[in-house]
């Protein structure tokens, strides 16, 4: 199965890798996907201010694996992801949230199997912490965002891709490669996406509707809990365990975690280990049973069931 690796901090290089992989040549920082794999385009926009943007829109004719994530500390990626699974309309599945925006930070890694006849549409904006502080003027406003951005980006919390985002993304796709003003069009659309995202984040910080106002200590505890949730054992760590260990009220911990990471502690643990399992399987070095054990499953069929539930594919099918 083809694995597209989008976890690179140099999008030009990333594009070259994909071109080599699918055996096509690059033209104007973009490439056309050959018909045996799918129909679509991948392109990279390099702005003079240092921002890199990856855009791809592909209808896949075969199953593929997409690995995304960040590679260097201090870099952020603002992801606008849309996935339309064959036979189902992404709009009708609000719960699975196939179209979303999320900010991802240094340690984010994500594996995804995209089934045949699905359409992915990605816009990924890569920027450094320095660029962001200069652009938003964080130096003056640091205190407000300082606490929030790292947590938000590590949690990879998803937010719905609303009409405003869609409108800008649509305009971005319409920019013509031969237009003498293309740099300005691209620059303005990309920065509007960034502005919208952070404006929303700011509003959320100011009025956490019925939510907890997090203290610095809360954030520190949450970070420690999150680290623990990435070690996988047969018995997942419980809320009681964390509550005793870090001396924090159970209810407060549960709610604060959900507020920041968007899902409950157990769901998060489960999601992380499924991601890990997918990653190990893709290396093709271990049997399904071994992978299951590595992520804390003693019973093989439980593992297979859980994997299927999460990715909608059988782990064995990824072994071929």
């Amino acid at each position: 199965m083809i694995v597209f690796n989008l976890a690179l901090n140099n999008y030009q290089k990333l594009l070259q890798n994909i071109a080599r992989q699918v055996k096509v040549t690059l033209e104007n920082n973009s490439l056309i996907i050959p018909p045996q794999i799918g129909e679509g385009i991948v392109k990279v926009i390099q702005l003079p201010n240092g921002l890199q943007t990856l855009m791809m829109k592909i209808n896949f004719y075969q199953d593929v694996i997409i690995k995304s994530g960040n590679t260097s500390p201090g870099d952020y990626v603002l992801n606008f992801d849309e996935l339309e699974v064959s036979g189902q309309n992404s709009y009708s599945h609000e719960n699975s949230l196939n179209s979303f925006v999320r900010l991802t930070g240094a340690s984010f890694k994500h594996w995804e199997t995209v089934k045949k006849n699905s359409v992915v549409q990605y816009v990924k904006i890569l920027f450094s912490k320095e660029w962001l502080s200069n652009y938003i003027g964080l130096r003056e406003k640091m205190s407000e965002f300082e606490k929030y951005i790292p947590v938000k980006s590590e949690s990879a919390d998803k937010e719905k891709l609303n009409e405003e985002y869609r409108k800008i993304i649509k305009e971005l796709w319409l920019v013509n490669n031969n237009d003498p003003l293309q740099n300005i069009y691209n620059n303005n659309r990309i920065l509007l996406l960034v502005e919208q995202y952070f404006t929303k984040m700011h509003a959320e910080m100011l009025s956490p509707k019925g939510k907890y106002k997090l203290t610095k200590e809360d954030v520190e505890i949450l970070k420690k809990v999150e680290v623990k949730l990435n070690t996988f054992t047969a018995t997942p760590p419980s809320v009681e365990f964390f509550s005793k260990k870090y001396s924090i009220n159970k209810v407060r911990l549960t709610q604060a975690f959900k507020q920041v990471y968007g899902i409950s502690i157990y769901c998060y643990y489960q999601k992380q280990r499924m991601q890990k399992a997918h990653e190990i399987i893709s290396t093709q070095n271990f049997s399904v049973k071994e992978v299951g054990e590595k992520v804390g499953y003693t019973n093989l069929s439980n593992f297979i069931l859980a994997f299927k539930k999460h990715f909608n594919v059988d782990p064995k099918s990824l072994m071929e």
Partner: protein
Amino acid sequence: MFRIDYNHTDYNKLLLAFADTMKVKVKKDTLVLPSDLGEGFFKNIKLSNGLECLVSNYTLHTDLYLQRNSSDNEFYILRFDEVSISDTLMVKIDKDYIWETKQDRASVLLTSSLFDFATSATKGTVTRSINVLITRQWLSQYLDINSLDDILQKYLSLKTDSYNFAPFDIEYRAWFNEVMEVTDSAMKKSIIENRIMLMVEKFLNNLYAKFHMANAWIENLLPHHEVKRLMEVESYLVKDFSTPPPPISFLSRVAAMSTTTLKNKFKKLYGINVYEYFQKCRMQKAKALLMSHKYTIKEIGSQLGYSNLSNFEAAFKKEFDRLPSQLILQG
């Protein structure tokens, strides 16, 4: 009369020179006018992409003459100005003069450092402006400089011809107001940058579109005196939303045209009908007020002349496809 001559190529030095002449200090990139001269400020804003902007907002307490002397160091200045002229305003571009009296004007103008440029405004005149200094180096980074050079040269060679002052339309006005009135939020810097860039984009975009249809477009131009009067009509339309818009008979007197001619020519210049224009601007104003988070929806409605809240909500929904409350929720 207070006179300042300058030929600086960066706004930091220009502010320092202004401050020196006015015997005040520049603080945080901002020059506050001394009270004998006026009330207001000049502020230097550097965008993250390297463009320099001079934002100003002031009311004159004395006559002011500003003269930019031509320089061999070539760069462009894109000026977005909204002036309320108390008595007379003189604009001099190279060797051409334009005189305007007692009116409000909001317009876009591109000038080059190769020409002298001067403005002289009388006591009581209110100016709000955004000047964007565009260097050739910046242009070469962001644009296809060869095609642009050609177009900019053509544009400048026409100098004071009517199209030089492009009027503000609804979009320009909305972006301009956002820059001038942005509240002190954490996103202030990027809002200012993005709105200014959208204004630059729109200007260049229009310029390209026009030059592609070069001859047809020049033939179809409205003469300068008509553009000027239509801009005056426009300024009456957007002056006050709390009362009904001025009747067409009044506007037709302002424009010195018959009502039919006014309607046609207004549409030609602004793209939409006179009262549609009024309504769109009113809704833009509503949106800006909502985003400022300073007023309730009801308060905004009544500021904009809606005595009935649901009428206001319906009008808002018609324009933006969303209710005012939904816009607030979206932050």
